């Protein structure tokens, strides 16, 4: 037996988490553990509960049962506005930007003061500007900063949303299908952003249907089916299991 301490530290866990919509059990007593500073991928057929899981973890939907563990604290209720305090931020499957404000303000708005009264007195701060400029340049959106978010192309919107999440500067990033519908050039861009974030010791969870990208990026894989965990582990090994292949081909 090795005396070496397991270097894999869990940054986010769910324990017996459930969520139903009417009679449909979207998530059924799911327990998973997300590893710190790794890229974790969640795959599964349509309707397997991937987006629901991300919505539960970010507080967009209330938990029906079970707990979410963040930093060794178990939470029965995750409030959306508390999720950055838990070190969590996210993107959405359907891009959700603040459409009728500028690209610049879309980034600035997540950098500034949260409390109401200090925010009333806060004017644009130089360090916020520096940070917004850095983010916009890193997602290649600096030239577009004065455009309204709604006037961007689909790919640009996707990138801006990832930039907005990066601006949050937290530990855990939940990306809901960050690669869907992107052209190869932007696909590479998003891939390199994710890799770079891993090098900066961030923990990333992403949902994807693109198996090539899943193989390339993920350090750890969860396969969901009908709201339950079908398989978990190292990517190639999991994708080779017959149960996993059946779940995909069976649908």
């Amino acid at each position, binding site marked *: 037996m090795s005396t070496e301490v397991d270097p894999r530290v869990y940054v986010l866990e769910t324990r017996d988490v459930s969520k139903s919509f009417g009679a449909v059990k979207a998530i059924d007593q799911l327990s998973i553990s997300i590893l710190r500073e790794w890229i974790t991928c969640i795959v599964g057929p349509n309707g397997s509960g991937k987006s629901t899981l991300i919505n539960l973890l970010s507080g967009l939907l209330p938990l029906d049962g079970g707990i979410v563990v963040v930093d060794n604290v178990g939470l029965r209720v995750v409030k959306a506005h508390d999720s950055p305090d838990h070190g969590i931020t996210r993107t959405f499957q359907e891009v959700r930007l603040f459409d009728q404000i500028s690209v610049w303000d879309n980034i600035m708005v997540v950098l*500034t003061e949260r409390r109401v009264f200090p925010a009333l007195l806060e004017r644009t701060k130089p360090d916020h500007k520096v940070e917004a400029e850095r983010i916009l340049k890193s997602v290649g959106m600096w030239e577009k900063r004065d455009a309204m978010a709604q006037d961007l192309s689909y790919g640009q919107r996707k990138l801006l949303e990832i930039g907005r999440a990066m601006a949050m500067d937290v530990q855990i990033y939940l990306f809901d299908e960050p690669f869907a519908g992107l052209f190869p050039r932007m696909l590479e861009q998003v891939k390199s952003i994710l890799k770079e974030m891993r090098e900066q010791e961030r923990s990333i969870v992403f949902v994807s249907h693109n198996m090539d990208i899943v193989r390339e990026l993920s350090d750890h894989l969860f396969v969901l089916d009908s709201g339950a965990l079908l398989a978990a582990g190292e990517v190639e090994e999991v994708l080779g299991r017959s149960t996993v292949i059946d779940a995909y081909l069976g649908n």
Partner: protein
Amino acid sequence: MSIASAPIRGLQEVARDPRSWWRRSKGSVELWANLIVLGWALVFMLWRGGGFAVTVGSVFAIWAVLAVSLNLVVGYTGLLSVGHIGFFGIGAYAMAVLTSSASYEQLRTEAIPTFGWPFFAALPISVVLAGLVALVVGIAFNRFRDDIYVLVSFGFAVIAFTTFLSWRSLTRGAFGIHQVARPAIGPLVFDGELEFLALLLVFLGLAVLISWLIVTSSFGRVLTAIREDEEAIEVFGYRTTHYKLAIWVISAMMAGLAGALLASWSTFIDPNSFVLLESVLLVSIVILGGLASIWGSLLGALAFVMLEEGMRFVPFLPSEFIGQIRQVILGILLVLLMLFRPQGLVGRFKL
């Protein structure tokens, strides 16, 4: 950055290179809206003379304070409230009740207590009272949004009007309250129309300044994000209910200020000034001028006031129809606007 500074930036551009500016802007609706409304107002005032300008200016200033305040809620935060007239009324009634010095025994109608406070003592009370009511109403309203918000705010306007009409021991109901005090600072009494206009413009300037400071602050940026996607901005750590409540109360206090000014300016108020229709007109002004644009609200209020005054001079139009025809024209304008220019005359944001 802000839309409020757009006119200033525009003027700088004109000064720098008038020719290229004209080439670029001659097709701009924004420019023509500004030119037509301002030009129309100017021509009318020159033609009708000083007295007319002072009266129209006063009516404009009161509507403009209201429109600017409502724009904070409707345009910037995206809460379509049609109940704002309620706070306007609360401000007006607080001012009227506190400062009226009428002796109702002589009028042989219902008597209400008279306090006879000076204007500047009652003003803060009017503003704070409107804010307090807004706080209570806002806490109840916070769970609603979109179309439901329109309905509940509609309900508030109805309740407010009914209260003004029926709480006769305080408001004298349909009789109205007479002899509301005019402002006075020491020996300086604002009893002339011109002096009062100056005071109104000072308060309008104050309302514009406060609104501008709000919408250009970090707080203001969050309001626009709430308007665009409330759920999304919440995920980034904002308690949107607090933000909505804060702007709601601030806006209601400004409306209360406008109401107090109206009461003192006209020295008489009755519930007719606070009917739901006035509230709908107010929303129309804000949309007509441009959502999320302070300048738009000023322009919208001016256009609205000039529309009424302008129609007095249309030949063969009996004067008793002017009020109704103005509403018809306003309605037609709104329909056309929604069809061809949903962002309003000078706005950026579409409803």
